């Protein structure tokens, strides 16, 4: 039995044919060249990440640079090795939703941390003998 899905999902499937499904031999050869370029870029970016870590820069800029390079590398892997560059919208929606949940989870952690400070500050001003 085929699984029923909401009609709205039909709108997510555009008319383009995904790369993985219909490719000519020439297309595959072209993509192999791209894979090799991506490999070279990833290797260079890895070396850059390590070199930057040996520079004497303070924590925050070092963190931002490392995360920026990691994000760039991850984007290259996702777009070209995982074929997101030509993937259907339904997959992109799955990723978008998981990205939103990931950000929400980080926000909960950071919110809890910020709350600890706020609660500590509040307790400081509470009347003596008050039990929270």
């Amino acid at each position, binding site marked *: *039995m*085929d*699984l029923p*899905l909401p009609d709205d*999902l*039909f709108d*997510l*499937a*555009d008319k383009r044919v*995904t790369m*993985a*499904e219909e*490719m000519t*031999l020439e297309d*595959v*050869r072209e*993509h*192999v060249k791209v*894979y*090799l370029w*991506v*490999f070279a870029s*990833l*290797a260079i970016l*890895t*070396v850059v*990440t*390590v070199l930057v*870590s040996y520079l004497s820069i303070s*924590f925050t800029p*070092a*963190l931002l640079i*490392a*995360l920026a*390079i*990691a994000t760039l*590398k*991850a984007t290259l*892997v*996702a777009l070209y*090795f*995982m074929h997101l560059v030509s*993937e*259907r*919208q*339904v*997959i992109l929606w*799955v*990723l978008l*939703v*998981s*990205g939103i*949940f*990931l950000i929400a*989870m*980080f926000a909960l*952690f*950071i919110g*809890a*941390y910020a709350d600890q400070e706020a609660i500590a500050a509040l307790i400081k001003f509470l009347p003596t003998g008050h039990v929270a």
Partner: protein
Amino acid sequence: MQIPYEVTARPDTGVNNAKLGIWLFLASEVMLFGGLFAAYVFLRIGADAWPGMMVYGTEMMAERADEILNVPLATLNTMILIASSVTMVMSWAALKMDRFDRYKLYMGLTILLALGFLVVKAFEYGDKFDHHWYASTNNFLGIYFVLTGLHAIHVTGGIVLNAYFWGPGTKLWKRGTPRDKAHFTNRIEVAGLYWHFVDLVWIFLFPMIYLI
């Protein structure tokens, strides 16, 4: 109820079932690793010193991760994993070109590189154990072993999966019909998506744990 096993795209989703399935699985993996990354951030912003006090005969205060972790080895492992991602995607491309011999070569290389990653990781862990540094030593080593250990389990799972597709799983391709070949190629594409995700996780793990 039976989910049809077809490699053609469904008209409603626009993708085949296996591809949608693996992406949904990867979305859950994002949350799994994301939770641990969040734990890492939480531990770190709450720490007075990072990595902090190490119990090593006499107590030692580590100010930078590279004082206790081997950055050159981790860089080598990063290169190994990136290379294995390339050989994985090349193995899929070889099948699309109907070059089964090339597929065997690239998939074999992917497995060997993944094994190489685990060997390097074993040396790295061995060095920590030699120093009597365990997950219980401090928060840094706790989250280090959890994150890298979970990642290593994923690498091991990938090796088992890819070894199956390198060996017994190739029977499907060898049947020789276009339908069987399309199904086998689809399986390799899906296995590849998992493998690239494992690479992607390491891309973030490496700078966060070893370099910052």
